[in-house]
């Protein structure tokens, strides 16, 4: 398991998820090179769990390429930004009081 996220991450891009196409297979998660995808607890209408994205996306497209359901779209920012993850401490764990 790679190192957990730091609180602030240089983020070059992002993804958009077509929630109704997603079948919760989870292939995108180990495929993600910067390891910023994780399985979430939200489900779509079909009952599949949807993935979640944390700051640090590099726009590498690995997730979109491995998605069997064509449910991911990848964007690259004109300028990389430092994204904070509110409610997450330096070890990547939830800060006290946060759900």
């Amino acid at each position, binding site marked *: 398991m790679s190192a957990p996220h730091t609180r602030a991450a240089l*983020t070059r*891009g*992002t*993804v*958009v*998820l*077509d*929630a109704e*196409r997603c*079948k*919760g*297979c*989870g*292939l995108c*998660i*180990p*495929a993600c*090179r910067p390891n910023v995808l994780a399985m*979430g607890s939200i489900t779509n209408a079909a009952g*599949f769990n949807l*993935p*979640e*994205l*944390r*700051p640090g*996306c590099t*726009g*590498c*497209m*690995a997730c*979109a*390429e*491995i*998605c*069997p*359901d*064509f*449910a*991911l*779209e*990848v*964007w*690259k*920012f*004109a*300028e990389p*930004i430092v*994204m904070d*993850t*509110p*409610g*997450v401490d330096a070890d990547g764990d*939830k800060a006290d009081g*946060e759900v």
Partner: protein
Amino acid sequence: MTTVDIHAAPDRDARRVVGFKPDLLQSSEHDLCPGCGHPIAWRLVLDSLVELELSHRTILIAGHGCYTQMMRIADLDSLQCLHGRAPAVATGVKRMVPGTAVVTLQGDGDMVSEGLHEVLHAAARGENVTALLFNNGVFGDTGGHMTATTVIGQRTKTSLDGREAAEHGYPIDVAKLLTQIEGAAYVARGAVNTPGMIARTKRMIRRALELQMAGAGFTFVEVLTMCPTGWFVPTADGPEYLEDSMMETFGIGELKAPPPAD
């Protein structure tokens, strides 16, 4: 909010680097299992066709299997043919419309069990078609039965305790057989279980199509794909299972290729 919103396009200056759906899909909706490797490989084929400017001059011939759905959603002039016969059908097609890119799509049950005869003879004749084998070592569409590429130890509904050589015989490596046939110009095997493998496999598919259009002879790309349903493994374990089981028997790489043009 601990995560980034991924249900809407970004609200900052950004460009889309990959859209949801390849151009040559009429729809991305399909009923294949979660974690199925076939659509991953199919995207590589469709993107390659577009990149090589073959969108308006491709004919697809598909066999019978889960992947037949992918023929249905593809924006390609298509024919579904009898089990195992795609390379023979492709021969008739290509001889009549030789300027067209002719691609066959078969699973391991279709090609290596039922249709071993057809693929070997099409290769021997050096037919200028690209034969694709999406190999997941199982008859997925019928519910998970042993094929000619099921590896030793793999459990299926007809090898419940795992395939055993003494009882079930050995798997056949059709790619290796094809390297022995002179009419086969390009023989390669990739996989879609990791991003690295996906990138390598894309290059193989592109090369095969380029060689077809250059009239080099029979081109063949086998892609190892995940079938967690047929393998009785959890969906997320598909990629690792593919590496541990299938890749041990079926090596990745270009098994036969013409020397690069100067």
